[in-house]
């Protein structure tokens, strides 16, 4: 016990930065009117400046590197605090689950764009494939956990239709193929009566091994079920994505993304690696699409437009292409900020454009630049 207290003292600054951030984000999720939002933004800016001036962020990073378990426990406790405070706030919880699921989607896109260099402008379409798959299955009395997986498999399967045109085109042209697919997909949904047409489909709430997601969770909102499960999925997919990066597979992807000719000259089979990245990425996207659809309880073609695909790609770019760590804060910014800016109505698009321009000007590599690969902990220390 004394040991723990000593360690907490040692890391006091880092721990308080983490908890202050958590509390700030909680308040951020709760504020609604413009006055408190403005005050909060000013306070947040001040806090950020203060923390940055004292290099506290660096200390947090050192903390994460040196004692991983301590750091993870700290993050877990901070998250727990947030969820306890927000236990009855439906909308805030829905936002958190959305951020988790959108982040998961963007891990899939990170594998495609950031690792293998495949620009996928049909993210929302594959998201939708997952959603429609589970919508069809939920009326069939199919176990929910399997339907979620099926959502992923369906997205990967539908994606395989695109593989041939993508392999036969390069760069911008491959991206155009995915744009065409994204546009076709929405039209297909709108015209297809068995999939509900423009009205879409209703979906029963999730029920897994007797865990009913539609019921209140220990007296809190029923969204807590989805939040917990989405966070679990996000953490697992994040871990997989990072493991892929820190393995021979990530090395092969990096090689072919940077230079196809030299990779081919060293025996790397470009096509099969691209297929792996595309399929795996789509699987992750479909998986989160299925969960998202379950949470919404209703899906329609308007949820999966080309604009949504662009939002997904912009999360990846804002976070730093190829860096899954950056995806989570970027997803938070891009998903939650527009909701909080409701009071300025359509001007928020203007603000969004401004944000994009500022990022491109001052942080062209995104919020967090991709670091050199380290294959395991302690990599590079002789």
């Amino acid at each position: 016990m004394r040991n723990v207290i000593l360690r907490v003292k040692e890391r006091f600054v880092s721990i308080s930065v983490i908890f202050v951030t958590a509390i700030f984000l909680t308040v951020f999720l709760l504020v609604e009117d413009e006055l408190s939002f403005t005050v909060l933004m000013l306070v947040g800016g001040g806090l950020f400046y203060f923390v940055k001036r004292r290099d506290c962020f660096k200390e947090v990073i050192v903390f994460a590197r040196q004692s991983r378990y301590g750091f993870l426990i700290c993050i877990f406790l901070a998250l727990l605090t947030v969820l306890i405070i927000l236990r009855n706030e439906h909308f805030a919880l829905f936002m958190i689950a959305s951020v988790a699921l959108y982040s998961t989607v963007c891990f899939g896109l990170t594998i495609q764009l950031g690792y293998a260099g495949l620009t996928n402008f049909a993210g929302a379409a594959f998201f939708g494939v997952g959603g429609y798959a589970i919508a069809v299955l939920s009326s069939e009395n199919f176990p929910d956990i399997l339907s979620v997986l099926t959502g992923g498999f369906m997205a990967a399967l539908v994606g395989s239709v695109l593989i041939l045109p993508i392999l036969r085109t390069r760069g911008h042209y491959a991206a155009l193929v995915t744009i065409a697919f994204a546009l076709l997909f929405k039209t297909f949904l709108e015209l297809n009566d068995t999939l509900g047409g423009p009205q879409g489909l209703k979906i029963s709430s999730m029920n897994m091994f007797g865990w009913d997601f539609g019921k209140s969770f220990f007296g809190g909102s029923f969204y807590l079920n989805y939040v917990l499960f989405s966070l679990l999925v996000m953490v697992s997919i994040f871990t997989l994505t990072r493991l892929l990066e820190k393995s021979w597979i990530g090395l092969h992807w990096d090689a072919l993304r940077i230079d196809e000719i030299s990779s081919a000259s060293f025996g790397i089979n470009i096509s099969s690696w691209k297929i792996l990245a595309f399929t795996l990425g789509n699987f992750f996207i479909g998986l989160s699409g299925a969960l998202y659809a379950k949470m919404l309880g209703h899906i329609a073609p308007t949820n999966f437009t080309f604009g949504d695909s662009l939002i997904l790609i912009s999360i990846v770019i804002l976070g730093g292409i190829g860096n899954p760590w950056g995806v989570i804060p970027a997803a938070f910014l891009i998903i939650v900020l527009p909701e909080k800016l409701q009071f300025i109505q359509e001007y928020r698009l203007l603000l969004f454009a401004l944000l994009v321009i500022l990022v491109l000007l001052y942080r062209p590599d995104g919020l967090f630049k991709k670091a050199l690969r380290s294959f395991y902990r302690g990599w590079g220390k002789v």
Partner: protein
Amino acid sequence: MGNSLLNSQGLTVKFGGLTALSDLNFSLEKGELLGLIGPNGSGKTTCFNTITGIYRQAAGTTSLLGKDITGFTPQQIYKCGITRTFQRLRLAVALSVFDNLLIGDSSSLNTNLFFNLFQRSKLKQEIEKKINKVKKIISVFNPALVDKLYEPVSKLSMIDRRRIEVCRALISDPKVLLLDEPSAGMTQEETRDFMNDLHEIKTKSPDLGIILIEHEMNVIESVTDRCIVLSYGKKISEGSFKDVSRNPSVRTAYLGED
């Protein structure tokens, strides 16, 4: 003929109406260092790109140790044991030195998805083995590079980048090494160091056949066993550097008529 390491007969490459290589015959013996020289645009790099399967030949055959490798993909050529460097470096400068070298050894890596994701301790062992292998090979060239193994290539000097590229080509223990103008962009001192490196390679792997494209004639003079001179895609002379440099048609090709 069957005994030679690499053998090309009637190699012809066309880009539309332009004949970049016409009816080139050459052979490379085990342990030989063959110089490939000629003015700019004479087809030297085209020859490399054709041997390594990046370009398709319009006619002609290439064989490695008697095995026909004509029309193989770059991947197949690499697996047969022919590796190369590029005139303009094609290193992944954003990646670490270790990553770049391992790209050269890609076919020996276990890329099984399950292995890479879930058997991390075995993967770690494999990585540690590779670290030792990489350290051994780069310390031959420049022992100081061993300490820079985990740094991005973008931080290295020109000659060290060249060395990394050569190491990347050598790490898979090839039979034939194609060096495309390794002295380009290097200072005279660096070029001299690089010549020593070449001698080092020859003593370390006596069976390795090397073809060297080079514009620095003193490099060619001091390291090659034999030279082939190309001009407008045709072989105009072949022999030791001394013989070739005395040949009047070679002088014409380099310096023009008069």
